[in-house]
């Protein structure tokens, strides 16, 4: 990559005035560094991932509404977590956390356990308990 080819496209970085460092060659073929404000193929890749996450959130919302999964699944998607990450935050085995994803099991959870989940999602126990998929 030549220095003048270092991309200066609009991106999520340029919104917050961030620039990233790239390595590129100068006119004599020697390496130097240059700042880039973003590159379109990357921006599209990131947008694609955000789209994917939003779809997962919407899907989880529907499932909570239909009573297929507990609110834990919805908030897990909102926080961009997967089962493993969530089980790390609440300090329980993954199989146990997955079980709590069932509405029937979720209903019987103690406040102490719910508080652990609420803390991981940074919401209140009430919000977690009363989420109906709306």
């Amino acid at each position: 990559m030549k220095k003048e080819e270092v991309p200066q496209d609009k991106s999520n970085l340029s919104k917050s005035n961030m620039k990233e460092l790239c390595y590129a060659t100068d006119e004599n073929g020697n390496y130097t560094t240059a700042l880039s404000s973003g590159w379109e193929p990357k921006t599209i890749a990131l947008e694609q991932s955000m789209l994917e996450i939003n779809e997962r959130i919407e899907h989880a919302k529907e499932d909570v509404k239909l009573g297929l999964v507990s609110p834990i699944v919805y908030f897990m998607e909102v926080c961009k977590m997967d089962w493993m990450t969530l089980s790390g935050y609440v300090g329980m085995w993954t199989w146990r956390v997955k079980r709590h994803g069932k509405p029937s099991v979720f209903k019987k959870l103690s406040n102490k356990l719910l508080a652990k989940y609420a803390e991981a999602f940074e919401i209140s126990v009430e919000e977690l308990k009363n989420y109906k998929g709306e």
Partner: protein
Amino acid sequence: METGFVHHQSAHCENGVASNLLKYHGINISEPMVFGIGSGLFFFYLPLLKVNHAPAISYRPMPGFIFNKAAKRLGIKVKRIKFSNPQSAQKALEENLNNNIPSGLQVGVYNLTYFPDEYRFHFNAHNLVVYGKKDDTFLISDPVMETVTTLTEKELEKVRFAKGALAPKGQMYYPVNIPSEIDWETAIKKGIKNTCNDMLAPVPIVGVAAMRFLARSIRKWPVKKGVKVANHYLAQMVRMQEEIGTGGGGFRFIYAAFLQEASVVLKNDSLKVLSAEMTTIGDLWRDFAVNAARVYKNRSNQTNVYNSLADELIHISNLEEAFFKKLKKAI
């Protein structure tokens, strides 16, 4: 309290922290030099392991490997400590700052308040340096940022004790013993040999063999997984290759910069030629990203677009195989 630490922006966090910490201790080492000596160039594909709901593809070794290898080859001792509770983690960090020791930390990205929202994923192998403390805010040098920043005690605790894969467990590290004389030549040669062996390794999930394995998978994705999933996988691959920290082209440009520097230290002109060759390969990786972006942007569902991406990848793997064989002979 504030140590006399100087912040330099870098492409990749781990090299950047290593280079900045060593510069503080009087060793003038650039980011590409850390990357090369620490054998940072890598390729890894493990379809069974899923990251962000896509197969694990990595252009770099495990977090911590680069700095550890570089330090070992330069004869520098690095102390690493993990903590089981946040209080002792903060206390140890403050003690270091009181003793004028800027310290590297492994942190999770999700709660880094100064990052744009889109970049806040549960990725736990980010690195930064804490170089001071004013009242209850820590002074932070994050190497991928242009300037220094700050985090409150609470915020820092959160990122140090992020959970999930590769949880940092408060990990703190800093060089403790620096030799008076550094044997650069041997260190560089060791770093290059290690990279050549990694990239030419006779295992299907590492190096050029892994690129070919991935190319075979790409051909199957649209049929086996459907276009939607195939495009998600491609987008993830491009992100691993080009996102902040890679310096572009899946670290190939940083490596080319290293080879150029190495050619001067080793007085070996063939490394300069190879550096230019690596630049060309890096450009091909960029072309691959452009073409992959075209596929997932247009949601094109013909299988031949995936086949042509796979062909491109095979072409790159052939070039890299020849490249690393030459590089091995050159030193």
